[in-house]
């Protein structure tokens, strides 16, 4: 981090320059930037975590859904087999 930006620990807030920074009462620029930096890091980590969560939950329920569809198709095939068998027995 650029020390000229942080400017060390300041007790008094610097005056605002254009629209890039607005002084907050009781907080110096360095503290605010430091807080923002940590907030950005935390937000990035949380976003990454949520991405991982969505993937894992998505995979889990997709597996169940795929297996459910496979069972449904197997059931349909079995019903066809039973019907064919019944027809054959009726003919015999």
């Amino acid at each position, binding site marked *: 981090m650029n020390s000229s930006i942080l400017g060390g620990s300041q007790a008094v807030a610097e005056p605002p320059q254009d629209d890039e920074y607005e002084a907050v009462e009781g907080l110096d620029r360095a503290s605010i930037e430091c807080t923002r930096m940590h907030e950005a890091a935390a937000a990035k980590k949380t976003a990454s*975590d949520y991405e991982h969560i969505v993937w*894992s939950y998505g995979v889990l329920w997709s597996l169940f859904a795929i297996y459910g569809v496979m069972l449904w198709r197997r059931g349909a095939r079995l019903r066809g087999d039973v019907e064919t068998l019944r027809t054959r027995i009726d003919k*015999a």
Partner: protein
Amino acid sequence: MTRQIPIVLLAIAAVVFPLSVHKIFLETGIERQLGTAQKIFYFHVPMAWIMMLFGLVCGIAAGIQLRRQSRRAEAVAIAAGEMVVLAGLGVLITGPIWGHASWGKAWTWDARQVTTGLLWLVFVAYVLVRRYGAAGSDRLAAALAIFGAVDVPVIYYAVKIWKTTHPSNDVVGTLPPEMWAALWPALGALLATAIALVAVRARQEMIEMDVDDAWVRVDELREAAKGAAS
């Protein structure tokens, strides 16, 4: 009545699943050390329990099938074996995703991971032998299922025997009440779904066995009729 059980279980899961999501994401706090990614725990751990439960069920049912030639046990073993493969795949995918999010490494070759991978491979072999094996391979498959079931306690005790990245087995018992309150619905929803699917699959397998027998009888009767006519 028994035919309605899977429908009832799936209906319960459909109600409990949204409740579990609500509890996990809106009522349970973010774990301090592992962060938001720890919420994978609420589905990863129940899937692991389901995998181990059905691994035992499959092994026991396969043993009964070998000893008593029970068709019901055979059908239950096949259905449970498939659920082990399904749940095992879920565990082996969600675990590394969680590991990657929390520690930056998906796979560390720790004892619990390796024994879980081994269990999954054994039951994949079981399902493949059941599906593509020649006549008489059901006995080999049953032996594989029993071997797989023996791996279940090894997975459980792996964290005690070897040094692993997984926490000890006691950690679940020491969870704060709010985490338990989120874990129970997640476990309930997944377990209800798993039992329902296993029940449906076992029933299908029994019908398939009956249909196969009926085909053999029909062919025998036809041959007998032909013989009588000539």
